[in-house]
């Protein structure tokens, strides 16, 4: 039997990596819709589950993901949709972190100036202005309370099992 699913890709600037996800999904035959993260409350009512990717799972259960992951987790929780994080166990990390600022990466600020229409952004001359800064965060941390389940290659776990998996890995070695 073929189950027809629909998926909605939520994208955030400036990477707009959701576009390539949409392309891959439509190529596979899954009907897709596409919104920016600003409109996530607009579509959240019709969504049945939210799937997020992670860059790391920290030892205190926080999920380090591309910026916007935490926002999606919060909105999904408010609308009572399950949040599923897909993360391989090699991404589990002994570090602990409670917020997104203490340890993060800054990507190229000029990529925030990219607009799809031909007009230049009003802050294009931001380097000359002493008062303007562009901050292009790469990661953000999602609190474990906002995540329903983490799917790894060995099992489906709650976020709080991260240190258990790490310990198991250490014992094995």
């Amino acid at each position: 039997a073929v189950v027809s699913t629909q998926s909605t890709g939520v994208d955030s600037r400036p990477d707009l990596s959701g576009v390539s996800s949409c392309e891959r999904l439509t190529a596979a035959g899954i009907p897709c819709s596409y919104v920016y993260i600003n409109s996530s409350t607009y579509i959240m009512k019709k969504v049945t589950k939210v799937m997020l990717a992670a860059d790391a799972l920290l030892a205190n259960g926080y999920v380090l993901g591309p910026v916007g992951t935490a926002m999606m987790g919060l909105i999904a929780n408010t609308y009572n949709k399950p949040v599923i994080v897909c993360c391989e166990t090699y991404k589990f990390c002994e570090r602990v972190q409670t917020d997104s600022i203490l340890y993060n990466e800054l990507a190229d600020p000029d990529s925030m100036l990219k607009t799809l229409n031909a007009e230049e952004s009003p802050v294009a001359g931001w380097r000359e202005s002493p008062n303007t800064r562009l901050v292009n965060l790469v990661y953000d941390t999602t609190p474990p309370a906002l995540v329903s389940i983490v799917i790894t290659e060995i099992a489906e776990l709650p976020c709080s099992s991260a240190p258990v998996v790490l310990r198991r890995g250490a014992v094995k070695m």
Partner: protein
Amino acid sequence: HQHDHQHAEAVVSTQSTGSFKNHEMDPFLLKKIPKDTVSRLEEFALYLRESKKERRSYVSVVKTVNVFRDLICTADWVTARELIKIIKCYCKYLPLSQSNETDVSNVVRRILKIIREENAGPEATNLADGISAFFKSDMKPSNLGRSDLQDNILNSIVELLVELDTSKSNIINMALEHIHSNERILTYGHSNTIRDFLLHGRRARDFEVIVCESGPSLQGHRMAAELSAGGIKTTVIADSAAFAIIHAVNKVIIGTHTIMADGALRAANGVHQLAMAAKYFSVPVIVCAALYKLSPTHLCSYDPDAFNKVIGPENMLNFSNAKLHSKVLISNPDFDYVPSDLIELFITNTGGHAPSYLYRIISELYHPDDYDLDNMCVETVDDEL
């Protein structure tokens, strides 16, 4: 392969405004209004129809008052009831059912309330006599003749214009009560009121502002440029990063397009999620808006297609990516509904108010018979025409 075609239908339905089925004015109206006024009224309707995103609501509100003042002076009426009927008839002709026009509808409601009050004269019923007396729509013809009544109405309209004129300065003068030194304030997208509010605060205090880009229109960039030109240290972040930084922010100060009757907002796309993130970290959300944005309408349905307006996605995904465009449903809603429990304070031209107090302000500003301007319920008692 099921696409949700509801979105396409919604675009069509919000475009077709019922009052424009026939572009002719009601013959009743044409009987009562001289020809040159008719042309001015048609011009105003055209101005509203070509609603542009960057149109300032203050400008359209002042235009509205002037057009209706013109109508009151030149139309053929004797009693206040007739005048109200003429005004409501004209409102049917205007494209007020489009989401952009709530500020215009609100000002029309204010004018109607002025007419009713002047008609009732000094012995008007006030709330002290009880709620039921207030809701009686007594349109007894007043003792004043048309010219006196018209003079009183026009005087009150001049007061209304002064109130509209000073509404922004009243709001921004409260900036120093709400911004302290070394504070970090988060704002969203572009708002003239908020920009002037923050710039006024900058004159006496030193603080930082973080501006969310507000994709896909990226109005936040314009706001950041204006704020930093005014001497405020500004940081621009992507909307997705709002949750990441909001715990380090002292307060969120935003503007809005409309305030609904229960204290909810119809604001720019993306404000709801920002308010949710602020609530999660207990960061207060303060909304600065003039009272002409306060609309006595409630959210009738949570269906986003009934409340919202979907605009073109050219800013979201390049049309050159035609293969994707043809397969993927792209939604670009213009507004966002923010429930009132996420908002801490409203700063209006009459001062600061909690969202729970707005119902009282509505009862002072508007008359219950005027709440629904689209399906105008003209009083069922006989007209003396």
